[in-house]
């Protein structure tokens, strides 16, 4: 089983220095664990002008790193698509979005489209399926829920930050790992259609307080429920209170009736 992990040139969110993207290191862990269980080799792929701190990925469990050398600002998709098609990988893992570049998370989808592979988003855990050539993917959903999918391989899977933490960095593993440079396919980067400015956090909608209202009204809007008009029970017996609470929770569909 051949597994590829796509690595992007990230930047540290605080210092702004070049750094590996955490979710891609998590993808390496998932790939290494799947490879260890079922006998597969894991290759990291990066397309760009230089590897830089991505060599750290070798210390996080990756055995082999392939650098597709591109000059300057160039679109990484054609280089990666060519290398992935040539390598005939069974499983391709990528982070859900980069950190430090465009960060739109679109590249895995365009690659999957080019290669004609199915794509599964937001994996938190991977397991091989019972039937040969299938992969079980646990997809992370909102509120800690999961969706278990069974996919036919080959497939491209993006990894969610809810996946297990990356393997700790080991210096010996980083020395042992090998990196190989290959010429990439040069493709001019698409001309920018966006205007860039320094980031300014936008205010989020919290609660609807009418403009020009008093401080008391704004505090109320921020703290009170929209529903209101609740039921009030003063000094009921504990048993009666318990019955009321349970009935209310059942009406909200939280405690299943037995």
């Amino acid at each position, binding site marked *: 089983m051949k597994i590829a992990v796509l690595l992007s040139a990230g930047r540290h969110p605080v210092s*702004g220095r070049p750094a590996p993207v955490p979710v891609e290191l998590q993808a390496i862990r998932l790939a290494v664990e799947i490879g260890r269980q079922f006998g597969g080799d894991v290759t990291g792929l990066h397309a760009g002008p230089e590897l830089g701190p991505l060599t750290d990925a070798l210390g996080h469990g990756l055995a082999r790193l392939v650098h597709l050398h591109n000059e300057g600002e160039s679109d990484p998709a054609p280089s990666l698509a060519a290398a992935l098609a040539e390598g005939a990988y069974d499983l391709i893992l990528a982070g859900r979005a980069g950190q430090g570049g465009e960060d739109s998370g679109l590249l895995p989808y365009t690659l999957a489209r080019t290669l004609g592979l199915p794509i599964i988003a937001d994996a938190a855990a991977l397991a091989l399926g019972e039937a040969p050539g299938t992969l079980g993917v646990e997809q992370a959903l909102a509120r800690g829920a999961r969706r278990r999918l069974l*996919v*036919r391989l080959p497939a491209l899977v993006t990894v969610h930050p809810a996946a297990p933490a990356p393997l700790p960095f080991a210096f010996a593993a980083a020395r042992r790992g090998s990196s190989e440079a290959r010429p990439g396919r040069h493709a001019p980067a698409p001309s920018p259609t966006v205007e860039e400015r320094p980031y300014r956090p936008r205010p989020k909608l919290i609660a609807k307080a009418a403009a020009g209202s008093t401080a008391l009204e704004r505090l109320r809007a921020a703290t009170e429920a929209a529903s209101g008009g*609740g039921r009030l029970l003063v000094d009921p017996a504990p048993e009666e209170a318990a019955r009321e609470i349970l009935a209310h929770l059942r009406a909200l569909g939280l405690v299943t009736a037995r």
Partner: protein
Amino acid sequence: MSRPRKDPRAARAAHRIAGGARPRFDLAAAPAPAGRPRRDPRAEERLALVPGTLRRRLDRAQRVAVASAMPPALPEAPEAAPRLRVIAEPAFLVAVVPDAPGGRLSAHDRQLFGAARMLADEGGGAVLAFVAQPGEDLGPAGADRVLALPVSGHDPEAKALALNAALAALDLRHVLFPESTDGGDLARRLAALSGEPFFAGAESLSPKAVTRAARGRRVEQRRVPPRLVNLAPDAVAPHAGTLHEALPVAFAFPQPSGGAVLSAEFIPADPAKVSLAEADFVVSAGNGVSDLDTFRALVAALNGTPGASRMLCDAGLMPRSAQVGASGTVLDARVYFALGIAGAPQHLQGVAKCEQVIAVNTDLHAAMIERAGLAIVADAQKVMPALLALLQQERQP
């Protein structure tokens, strides 16, 4: 604070009696009311006095109408039913693809409709909603047209193919998606499929410009809204005011073919492991709870996520990660069950987003009791074992 300045000459002139050769003034007559009327602080205090308490207690939150020297305000016009707005011949369409789990719109989906309404109303367009399964009425949310997608079960690829066909055939100026697991996935699939310009995770949206964070949230990218926009939560207010017709329309979608996903199974979250910010149902203890073993047993029996007030976390009785409130975790839960929590403003900020609150507290005037949908004025220490016994008794037979 600016108050009109008193003009003693004008005040005197107001008392002047018209007619007569000599100027005469009637200073005893009440002057015409001018400017701000006087308040009667004693009357306000009398009304704010809560009766039936031993200690003198004032409720200045104005739950009782305060009578003042002010003339009564004109009765407001009765709240009219929302006006139905029909857009018969739209100039263009703005499409919305809500997640709508189980056919119910989430808060994020409603914000999406608000954004679509804003883009459509700019040039006489209409909002078209793509729904995967029939659910609630989309008219109040702001949908003019509703188109059902021919998708059954979890199949995002078939959904993307159907949307691509609609994108090519219909005059869709924009298609909006929520930046959620499923919505974000679908938007990127459609962007890769159609090659249309795509804007991921928009943090502000107007007909002229849309912005997003990029390069590790150090740069803001800004452009005119492209055809495919993926909207972050809490960026645009939901639609309110007018009612729309939500007219079902038909479209000949291509036949879906089998995808690579062989099976899909939903696994609900384990509430004991889920983090407080993600939890759906939080059971929280405050200073009115001293028996924490019973509390933990109750949380496990109710299948909730444990939370606590600042008091318990400061005392070391509950972990800091369980603290609810402005200095702890701001909840996103649907239901919040507060045991022995009075409700400090900082704590109430933490539960501001909860739809339903149940409170048990001994103080009738506690803020949490006022906030709650079901408020019980009782000792939480006695209610907890009763509730636990009731749950165990129901589970036994």
